[in-house]
């Protein structure tokens, strides 16, 4: 792996540590995923625990900062349990696979507002790359 995951804060919050650890391990285990590191700013927030992070994705580098910063292309909002589940949902073209039970559950949660993704329609390609980067499948 040549890409780096860098934390902006001396003490990354728990969400930053989990998402950072997930990306780092995925890039190590699937080096081909480095191709997904195209410019994107992504905010992730878990309102049930009051924790947020901002990902600054660029070729060869993922920066992770505590809190929401700047104007992200995508803002993902979901409760902590749901955020964890999102990483294990089967994907088709980078989006939840509606041919699977888990994929349909995520789509249902999106429709019911349990998962909110701001910027989803404008930045579909960025969302697909983010999903693939975080996926444990």
């Amino acid at each position, binding site marked *: 792996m040549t890409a780096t995951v860098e934390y902006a804060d001396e003490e990354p*919050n*728990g969400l930053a*540590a*989990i998402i950072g650890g997930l990306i780092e*391990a*995925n890039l190590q*285990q699937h080096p081909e995923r480095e191709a997904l590191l195209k410019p994107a700013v992504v905010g992730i927030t878990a309102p049930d625990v009051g924790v947020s992070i901002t990902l600054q994705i660029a070729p060869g580098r993922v920066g992770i900062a505590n809190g929401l910063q700047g104007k992200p292309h995508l803002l993902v909002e979901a409760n902590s349990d749901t955020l*964890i589940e999102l*990483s294990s949902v089967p994907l088709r073209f980078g989006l939840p696979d509606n041919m699977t039970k888990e994929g349909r559950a995520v789509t249902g949660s999106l429709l019911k507002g349990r998962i909110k993704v701001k910027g989803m329609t404008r930045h579909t390609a960025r969302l697909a790359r983010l999903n693939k980067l975080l996926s444990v499948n």
Partner: protein
Amino acid sequence: MALFPSEEWLDLYVDRINQSKEYQEAAATWEGDVAYVFEAEPDRGVPEELWAWLDLWHGECREGKLVPAAEGEKAKFIIRAPYSRWKEVINKELDPVKGMMQGKLKLKGDLPTIVRYVKAANELVNLAQTVPTEFVDEQV
């Protein structure tokens, strides 16, 4: 009733794990040992850090014991928190996933594996909550 944290509590916990059909199903393909670190809180009756080690293999706990830190550090997965946070988890006052997101519980190990087995991890916590427990700082 077993004192937490202690070897006796751990024995009861291992029994609960091995009696759980839910855990057996959720962790059917799990391979890897786990260490829980109960960080010292001398004012609460935990004068030094304790390491509980669980040898988890295909839905079974083959062994569980308190180990020296040098041994525990070799575990594939390590979950670390102060004693009182663990007490909150066992008392169902702190959800472990929320605790990890907030940085109250610190996890070391391969994150993708943990995410794949989040149901098994939750079941392990549920089982800890079923052990009849007396906490060391509440001893009479």
